[in-house]
């Protein structure tokens, strides 16, 4: 018997990874676009953006210097002021998680594995020219060194583990000053009163838009799904700032008129959820998807891939360069509710505030298996919620697409219990 004639070349490892990522991305987008009530038209910008970046591998910043950031704690105002683009590299792809698994311990956090995995594959639609790695959680801090070994330029940014003390504040301010100085030298750009003020205002305006948009979700009829909001906020990781602002303004306008028309993205019966814990990052919106698929709606979140990026604005006393740099630094330390801190009562307070302000029926707390700090803080958050009489469910998950069955059952049961609770109250 004869062998067939080969017409198509087998994919290179890189092509295969890209196809896997494209398939992950499109599968999620298809669900968000079609499994729910019609989304706001302005969401099309974001759907197309994800498709362009992850399926068509389109570069968004071909001309610019790109500064990769390993964590939310890197001040984007400084990077913008120096005419570079910050790209947050926290990654949600299972394909990259599997690649990163070869380098990291089996019980590591999937987000860190996926982030490292992307460096291993080198598959970036916009490749960072240098990478800033803040010493926030252990796994991220250690990953910086692994990435450096691969030949990337890394800047370790020291970050304190307490935030109440005067020492930690000063320590972090010095760290930000050092970062500013080194980045400025590296990029050969001077930080001026003008460019820093402009970038503070620009990022501040984006935050303002987010606030206005998310406030609309306080209405009994939330005009937008939590899933769509995660897409909007996740896009802030990598999108061109001006384009993001433009698209979000459009979305805001549309959502305002949806509120007037009492258009509800879910139904009046749908329990309202506050989401907290390890960050949902595209395309790992697995848990939010399960929640909203089970007839609940996420009305607010306390995560570093969404609310925490926008919540606190820079507040400047004096518009001089050094004062502004310090004010920028303060925003990132004082407002941060990351569980890496020794004590973290701010986070509990914020969750309770969100539940009250957004009239939520319950809280979903999700931790990535391997994300120790979120796993550890689960206890104190659960206790605090119990004290307040707020229903909460704690879930552990990772990026793997299998074993959804058990998670689905738990989430459905939780949502049903919230519905019952509401019925009894009425």
């Amino acid at each position: 018997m004869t062998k067939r004639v080969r017409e198509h070349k087998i994919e290179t490892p890189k092509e295969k990874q890209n196809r896997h990522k494209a398939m992950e991305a499109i599968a999620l987008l298809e669900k968000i676009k079609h499994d729910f009530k019609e989304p706001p038209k302005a969401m099309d910008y974001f759907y197309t953006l994800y498709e362009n970046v992850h399926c068509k591998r389109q570069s968004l910043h071909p001309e610019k210097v790109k500064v990769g950031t390993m964590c939310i704690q890197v001040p984007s105002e400084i990077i913008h002021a120096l005419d570079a683009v910050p790209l947050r590299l926290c990654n949600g792809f299972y394909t990259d998680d599997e690649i990163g698994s070869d380098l990291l311990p089996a019980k590591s956090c999937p987000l860190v594995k996926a982030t490292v995995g992307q460096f291993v594959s080198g598959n970036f639609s916009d490749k960072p020219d240098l990478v800033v790695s803040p010493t926030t959680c252990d796994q991220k801090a250690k990953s910086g060194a692994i990435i450096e070994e691969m030949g990337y330029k890394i800047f370790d940014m020291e970050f304190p583990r307490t935030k109440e003390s005067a020492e930690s504040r000063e320590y972090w301010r010095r760290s930000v000053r050092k970062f500013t100085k080194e980045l400025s030298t590296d990029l050969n750009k001077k930080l001026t009163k003008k460019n820093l003020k402009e970038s503070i205002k620009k990022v501040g305006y984006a935050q303002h838009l987010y606030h206005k948009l998310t406030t609309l979700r306080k209405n009994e009829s939330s005009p937008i799904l939590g899933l769509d909001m995660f897409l909007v906020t996740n896009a802030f990781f990598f999108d061109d700032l001006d384009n993001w602002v433009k698209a979000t303004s459009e979305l805001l306008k549309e959502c305002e008129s949806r509120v007037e028309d009492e258009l509800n993205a879910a139904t009046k019966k749908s329990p309202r959820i506050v989401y907290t814990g390890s960050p949902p990052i595209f395309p790992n919106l697995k848990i939010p998807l399960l929640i909203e698929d089970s007839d609940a709606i996420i009305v607010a979140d306390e995560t570093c891939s969404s609310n925490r990026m926008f919540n606190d604005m820079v507040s400047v006393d004096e518009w001089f360069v050094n004062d502004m740099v310090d004010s920028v630094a303060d925003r990132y330390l004082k407002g941060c509710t990351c569980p890496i801190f020794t004590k973290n009562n701010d986070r509990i307070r914020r969750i309770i505030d969100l539940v009250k302000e957004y009239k939520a029926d319950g809280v979903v707390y999700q931790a990535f298996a391997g994300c120790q700090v979120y796993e550890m803080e689960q206890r104190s958050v659960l206790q605090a919620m119990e004290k307040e009489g707020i229903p909460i469910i704690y879930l552990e998950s990772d990026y793997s697409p299998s074993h959804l069955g058990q998670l689905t059952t738990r989430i459905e049961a939780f949502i049903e219990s919230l519905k019952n609770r509401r019925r009894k109250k009425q």
Partner: protein
Amino acid sequence: MKYFVGIDIGSTAIKVALVDENEELVGHKISASGSMFYKYAKQSLNELLTELKIDEKDVVYTVATGYGRKLFKEADENISEITANAMGAVAAAKGECNIKTIINIGGQDSKAISLDDEGTVVNFAMNDRCAAGTGKFLDVVAMNLELEVDELGDYHFKSEGAPLAINSTCAVFAESEIIGLLGNDNSVEDIVAGVHYSIAKRIIKLVKRVGIKEGIYFDGGPALNEGLVYAIENELSKEIFIPEFPQITTAYGAAILAHESYGYEN
């Protein structure tokens, strides 16, 4: 001249292969299993002999294999399709590729077989009696997309977007997923590519259970689907060997065994 016959009675098709004393394939026939396995198998064999102008008496040894092998009473011997598949694959690739791993996708099941250096079966795995990732599954997909099964391969290569994966492991649920994708105005090409990659991923899980060793052979009707072949190669990142007649490997193996058994007995 003496002839040796292998008959593979599968869930969907009956395959008959006939070899001579040199174990050269003289002819073969593929027909639908229908509802009467025995009758159709007999009919198929007779037709083949007529076509080849071979007298029934010259067929000295017959081995039956496959799902319906026990129904074919005239057979001198019957063996499991796993053994027959392994023998057929090693013989079909002889001189071109040293087969160590076999992927077989049939009408109703899929298998992965691992061989040692001598071509003996060391391990195998089968899917769990579910049509997902089998030939039947491709039939259902083609029907939903209003295509013929043999058009699927071409459509795969016309896909321009990202392949749209089918997540359901059940053929019935997958069908509704496909209808959903069509309803959302997705291109048939992207759906076809997605289906192929979904099957490929499932098959690879099966192959991993027995271990992936190079020298990979793929047979069964779906191996005629170049799109599926390509998807499996991409998922494995390895070349696979496709025989000239992928559907008859098992029947061919049975025919070779018929020759060997005959030699042993006489």
